[in-house]
């Protein structure tokens, strides 16, 4: 490894056959799908709110947020609870099951037109063997 390179851990999740990663330091926990209460007049990608041990947390449907086709809920559907500063939200993803360490050397800037996701939410592409993992800029998703 070159000097100055470092590794970071990412929580990996799937959305519509693509693999995505979120900085593990932003992830509080991963929950199975649960009852969501719809919030009228909220943004279209907000599915509603859930009760996380007494706290009311908004839940975002990432497929809708990214403009992907609507998927079906399965037993693998997960809610990833992430927090940025004092904002905590849940992200609905197709499945999430592993944590991968990626060296900063194997992260490249996102080329145009990767995946079907709005470019501004991506800060890089991580290469792990043959796999390409889209690394999300979670701060941007939450604060926009």
């Amino acid at each position, binding site marked *: 490894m070159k000097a100055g390179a470092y590794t970071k851990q990412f929580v990996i999740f799937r959305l519509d056959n693509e693999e995505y990663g979120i900085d593990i330091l932003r992830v509080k926990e991963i929950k199975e799908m649960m009852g969501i209460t719809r919030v009228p007049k909220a943004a279209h990608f907000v599915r*509603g709110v859930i*009760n996380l041990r007494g706290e*009311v947390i908004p839940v975002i449907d990432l497929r809708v947020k990214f403009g992907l086709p609507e998927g079906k809920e399965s037993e693998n559907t997960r809610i990833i609870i992430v927090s940025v500063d004092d904002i905590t939200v849940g992200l609905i993803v197709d499945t999430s099951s592993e944590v991968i360490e990626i060296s900063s050397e194997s992260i490249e800037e996102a080329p145009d037109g990767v995946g079907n996701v709005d470019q501004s939410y991506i800060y890089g592409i991580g290469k792990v063997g043959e796999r390409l993992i889209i690394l999300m800029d979670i701060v941007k998703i939450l604060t926009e």
Partner: protein
Amino acid sequence: MDINQYLEVFIEESQEHLQGLNQSLLSLETNPKDIKTLNEIFRVAHTLKGMAGTMGFTGITNLTHQMENVLDAIRLGKVEVNSSIVDILFKCLDYLENSIGNIANCGQESNGSADAIIASLNGILLKKGDAEVKKAVTDIGNVRMKFNQYDENLVRKALQQSMEVYKLRVVLAEDCMLKSARAFLVFQTVERYAEIFKAEPKVEDIEDEKFGNEFTIAIITKEPETLIKKELESISEIREAIFEKVELSEEIPIDSDSLDEDVTESKESESYNEEKYGLEAMHGKKTKMGKTVRVDIDRLDNLMNLVSELIIIKTRLEGVGTDSRNQDMIEAVEYLERITTNLHDAVMKVRMVPIERVFNRFPRMVRDLSRDLSKGITLSMTGEETELDRTVIDEIGDPLIHLIRNAIDHGIEGKEERMQNNKKPNGLVSLRAYQDGNSVVIEVEDDGIGIDILKVKNKAIERGIISQGDANELDEKGIIELLFKPGFSTSDKVSDLSGRGVGLDVVKNRIEALNGIVEVESKKGEGSKFLIRLPLTLAIIQALLVTTGDEKYAIPLNVIRDINTIESSAIRNVHGQDVVLNRGNVLPIVWLGKMLDVHNATNDKNEEYTAVVVKKGEKNAAFIVDGLMGQQEIVIKTLGKFLSGIKNIAGATILGDGQVALIIDTNSLI
């Protein structure tokens, strides 16, 4: 020792002291001969000086020291209290408040120099022309020790070698048994890090225990002051070690022999004063504080959250208990319910603060306003002891300030005008607080000119807030309501105080954000009364749970007037708005399901509907729901920052089964 950890305590205590100072000054103004008040002011200035000195805020230290000198002169009868002195003292208070505010915001004292104020304080003393006091004036700082020529040279040398020089005052505990032994330990500890080059009293006297509770030494060191301070304060029976850095730039007073005697004398009397007032201060504190603990509001919030959790689980257990029909279970749950209710009340009480905290600042404000506007104004306040939740207290200050300013600026007439109208020359503004059932009412009333309905109406039309036609249809109450519209201001001239067009609408918004309401009563020529009604608590309320489609919502019980059944044949459509006649009034209908985009909510094809009639001030509306689930105690949770600004929803709550139900903001739907 990290001083930051004490900063918060310092700020809070200082603010408390300043509040007290404010009151004392006001009563000094009305009663300048009262020695008790004077002593109280002196005590506050003295305490502040000590605290600021310990924290290293020299600006405050200097100013309070000078205040002490003036106050002392007043106390000794050398200077007489007059309004200009009180004004200067008020200026000192402003400066101190400013400084403390700045410290709270950015950790720094205020940039504005206190020199001008100190100079005017000096002026008071100089008028008297007393040499003794003049000398005291130059003696600034709370560590007193004079250097002679020899010492001064030593200091200069040390500073040139980039070492630090401190005057160090060591205060022993009152009940210290072996004072000389402690002093010996202090010397030993200090000598590990520094060189002692002067002591006061003399070292021999200290060894012979010929000193009071404290002694001062001058040291030269390379070590940081915090280190030595920490070491010293870890010695038992040492109450505190106060450091004062000696700077080159500072003019070190040189004592000639002839002055020496004089100095010790004044020093003696000062330290006597110090002891006396120190004791008094402590005594005063004891009686005032009682057995209290200062607790961070965050901890209370946390406690409140836990109690909320408990209430949620209790509600859930109630469900299980009723379902199981097990007598033991039901009894146990009933017992649990009693305990949680008591616990909730107890925690609520802890969070309650007397409204005095807010009211405190008004006498000063009214005093200043009445001077600025040269209107005579008497402020009467009652019910200061009424208690409100801390969060409400924090929010209610600004709206009240606004209402009081309005009352004085727009309400109360000038003296001559009042005389012409056979009123007392002094206007009366009354501030009343009292508890009324589950809410607290605050009234701001003035005996001024009252609200001129016609003027308000014309102004509203002129400003384009309402059309001529609509205005003509309004009754008196409706016109008064116009005052609360954004962009309304009736004052002919825009003054510094009010009349900038931001005003009552902001007040109304603030109060409504606290789930409160504002009402106005006014009689032309006799005055007006603003009435604010606030809920006792914000966190836990009684609510009615309703269903629409397959969604559940909570409606706060305090806004519900009644629950009715409406037949579809009784519904009329007027101007595109569904209405129903109820008790002789026209009641607009709100289709809750439709308003909240609920998919499978009741449509308008039924024969009968359940209507929850909700009130908003004088207005009512019928909310059509699909079903009623019953009344429940609910804990209000916010939707959080991410979902802030969602309309029609006031918050969320967690039901017994763990599901989230949203709380409807009925105000926004009417």
